[in-house]
């Protein structure tokens, strides 16, 4: 879409949704290319030279990037026009979109509801049809869950597929660059552009991605699709189950082979605590550099330590400080084996289970969320229920394993979307997106009109 139209639309929805931290007056562009027709929004944890980059945190609320993230460079080199930096949960550490220092993000399809998080603003600007593609990052499900809540495609490719150079980290062994598009074909085109080994990010894959966007057929005949039964077992929302069962029927009509996979339920219940420990321990270490001495919003103090303490107390919200305390607790010598290392071991067992489940099939699927987007106020989850521990948070398996995983819209309930998530074997984005393309054809999704 025209970048100036995009900017106008972003400004129009900003007051109601708070989707952006920065909206550019003029699109940022470098040259013309095959993506010249694309307007791009960038999550505000991607660094851009000369541009405010806050990661949704007060401590970085005055930070101006001094270089471009690799993925930003790649998009600009292909002609894309960057129009905004979007709102996120502080430092990406949240799943609601409510914790940025600039205030909560509201879902443009219904302002009483969340857009999801942490890539909340990116999902919201897509839901409002304000851009063609929005960059996000995905450490637990931070692209794939908001995609479900906002009725758009959300892809997290294989770990290492896209460079993370210039992305403010959360938990390095789980962080992925991901993004939102309006359709699967755009997701495939974007992946071809953004992928590739980057000497500035030694975790990027050396393997080349074969160009495949023009090969997407979407033919589901004889595709082997496994339903993640444990996830379905704990979803109690009849509308979600109805949409999903309808989808299965359609897939069977198309000639897909449907099977059902059941993993070790006790092991699956440890997904969320394992994630919580790994993510918070890694985050605690990653964010030790946010001292407001070399950069960041500095508070007054008599000496160096007082400056740091005051800056970090004011600079991080309560939730973050709580998570850092828990992360630090998990890393203490006396707890490390029992918590951090134990979590790393369970991570391996969980990935082994997923690998086994994918052995004989092309993808494994389940609803991307157990129901539509929660309201802005909602936080009534029973934190020890299987629904919470398994059905609501199973997509962390994609981060533990690094396997590619995509959410595509599955349908609407009361004018709010809900998505289906597909996960494939490592490096196999071609199969993942081909099947997702097939899903898109049989679902023929129509996004609700929205209220802004």
């Amino acid at each position, binding site marked *: 879409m025209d970048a100036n139209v995009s900017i106008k639309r972003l400004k129009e929805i900003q007051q109601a949704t708070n989707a952006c931290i920065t909206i550019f007056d003029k699109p940022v562009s470098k040259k013309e290319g095959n993506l010249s027709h694309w307007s791009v929004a960038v999550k505000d944890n991607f660094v851009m030279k000369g541009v405010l980059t806050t990661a949704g945190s007060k401590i970085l609320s005055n930070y101006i990037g001094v270089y471009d993230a690799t993925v930003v460079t790649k998009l600009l080199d292909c002609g894309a026009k960057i129009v905004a930096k979007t709102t996120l949960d502080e430092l990406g550490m949240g799943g609601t979109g409510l914790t940025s220092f600039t205030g909560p993000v509201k879902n443009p399809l219904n302002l009483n509801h969340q857009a999801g998080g942490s890539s909340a603003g990116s999902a919201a600007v897509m839901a409002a049809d304000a851009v063609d593609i929005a960059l996000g990052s995905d450490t637990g499900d931070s692209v794939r869950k908001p995609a479900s809540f906002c009725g758009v495609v959300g892809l997290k490719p294989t770990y290492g597929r896209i460079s993370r150079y210039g992305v403010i980290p959360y938990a390095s062994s789980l962080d992925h660059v991901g993004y939102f598009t309006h359709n699967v074909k755009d997701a495939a085109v974007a992946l071809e552009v953004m992928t590739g080994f980057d000497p500035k990010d030694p975790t990027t894959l050396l393997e080349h991605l074969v160009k495949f966007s023009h090969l997407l057929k979407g033919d589901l005949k004889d595709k082997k699709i496994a339903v993640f039964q444990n996830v379905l077992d704990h979803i109690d929302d009849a509308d979600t189950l109805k949409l999903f069962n309808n989808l299965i029927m359609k897939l069977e009509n198309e000639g897909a082979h449907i099977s059902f996979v059941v993993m070790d339920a006790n092991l699956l219940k440890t997904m969320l605590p394992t994630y919580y420990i790994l993510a918070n321990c890694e985050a605690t270490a990653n964010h030790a550099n946010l001292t407001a001495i070399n950069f960041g919003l500095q508070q007054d103090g008599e000496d160096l330590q007082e400056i740091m303490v005051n800056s*970090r107390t004011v600079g*991080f919200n309560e939730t973050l400080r709580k998570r850092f305390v828990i992360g630090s607790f998990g890393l203490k010598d006396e707890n490390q084996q029992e918590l951090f290392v134990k979590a790393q071991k369970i991570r391996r067992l969980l990935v082994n289970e997923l690998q086994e489940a994918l052995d004989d099939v092309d993808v494994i699927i389940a609803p991307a969320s157990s129901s539509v987007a929660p309201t802005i106020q909602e936080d009534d989850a029973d934190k020890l229920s299987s629904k919470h521990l398994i059905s609501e948070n199973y997509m962390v398996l994609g981060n533990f394993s690094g396997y590619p995983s995509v959410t595509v819209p599955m349908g609407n309930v009361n004018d709010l979307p809900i998505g289906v998530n597909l996960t494939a074997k490592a490096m196999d984005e071609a199969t993942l997106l081909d099947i997702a393309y097939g899903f898109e054809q049989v679902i023929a999704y129509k996004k609700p009109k929205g209220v802004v």
Partner: protein
Amino acid sequence: MKQFKKEEILSLANELQFSLSELEISNIEKEFEVLMAQLSLMNDIDTSNVEPMIYPFEAPIAYLRSDKVNHVLSIDEALKNAPKQQDNFVVVPKVVK
């Protein structure tokens, strides 16, 4: 099950270089109860003879680049976000008093 006392929370916050209010401490204590109940699920899993998984893939991804200086920020860029600076240094209050 591990305990999480107020003194320990304060000591961790001190190491982490931030303060917590009384209310925040009490919220952490409450959250910790839930977390400990969740973490106890991990104790039910037998992880003997399991190697910790540090990164998603076992394939070696480390490489050696040639030993040439590349990709450096200029002094101006490096200091661009420093709250206080003078003569190419970041300025902090006197440390040795």
